[in-house]
């Protein structure tokens, strides 16, 4: 999986690409843990490059969201490809997350 990091509007963003499944969650778990340890509670996960997401990866994002909200923050998702959007709908996780069509919207909302 391709992973890049960036900061925009003081919000830390992780950009993911490829198949996001149980084989690939470790670096994302580590990034979320690093953000928590650094006290960062407003985060964005950009899924623009992700074409498939499995239940382990979904669970990782849910854990990240839960941790951010416990600290009065948010974890926003953005730029989903259609298959990933459909998977979020079918699992009803689209109701749990704030999902945006662009990175700008996802970060501006929190700024």
């Amino acid at each position, binding site marked *: 999986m391709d992973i890049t990091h960036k900061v925009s509007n003081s919000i830390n963003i992780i950009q993911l690409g490829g*198949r996001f*499944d*149980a*084989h690939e969650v470790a670096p994302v778990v580590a990034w979320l843990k690093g953000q928590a340890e650094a006290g960062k509670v407003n985060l964005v996960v950009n899924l623009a490059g992700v*074409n*498939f*997401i*499995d*239940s*382990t990866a*979904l669970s990782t994002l849910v854990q990240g969201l839960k941790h951010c909200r416990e600290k009065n923050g948010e974890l926003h998702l953005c730029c989903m*490809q*259609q*298959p990933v*959007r*459909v*998977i979020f*709908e*079918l*699992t009803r996780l689209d109701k749990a997350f704030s999902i945006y069509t662009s990175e700008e919207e996802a970060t501006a909302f929190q700024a």
Partner: protein
Amino acid sequence: MSYENYKNWKTKAISGIPHLSIVIPAYNEQERIVATIGAIASHVSDLGFEWELLIADDGSKDDTVKLVEELGLVNLRLLKTPKNGGKGNAVQRGMIASKGRYVLFADADNSTPIEEISKLLAKLEKENYDVAVGSRAVEGAEESNKSFLRHLLSGGLRWIVKNVLRINVRDTQCGFKMYTQKAAKELHAMQTIMGFSFDLEILFLASKYGLRIAEVPVSWVDAPGSKVDTKKEIQRFLRDLVNIQVNNFKGVYRRM
């Protein structure tokens, strides 16, 4: 990619004969089935033809059936059974129940990404093959996360299949195969093996009766959560290989 196409497939029942049926065998797949259905529904709805999805449950003891029933997808048919009859049995039930002009069997873990479907469909639609087999063993295929042990075993089994059963397909076990409706019904009606090596019997029968088989390179990911016990499956594979030879000798395989 159009979300409208997916929404139409999700809510409007198809009226005529579907162009394609997709059969997914499922046994205790509560962790993986919904994501796979989502990926398939999103992609195939955009291909411009009517299609149906069949989930052939194999007597799951977890929440697979409940999760699939709750999705509310009108062109999805769930085939239920109280007993665990084996993967081959689930695929057979799906193939017999399918209505499409072409029928794809795909594994529940999306280990061969559904985006590969067009390659197989083109072989049947445009080049008049009867069977198109997704293959990890021909030039152009890509494999990810496959262990050295699985590589070694695959190589050994391929040698046996080629030299004992005389099947001219290098990868008999990839869970991504497409048939014409006629081939699907005929071959699966003769099927006697209900475990994981049912593919071997189906391809043996396809070869025996002179059907045209295309082997198509696909990308494949060793998806997490596999339920295959490699040691047991090799033993069964070798036993089934002998059974196929015995059945053939006894004249068990008769074309309807």
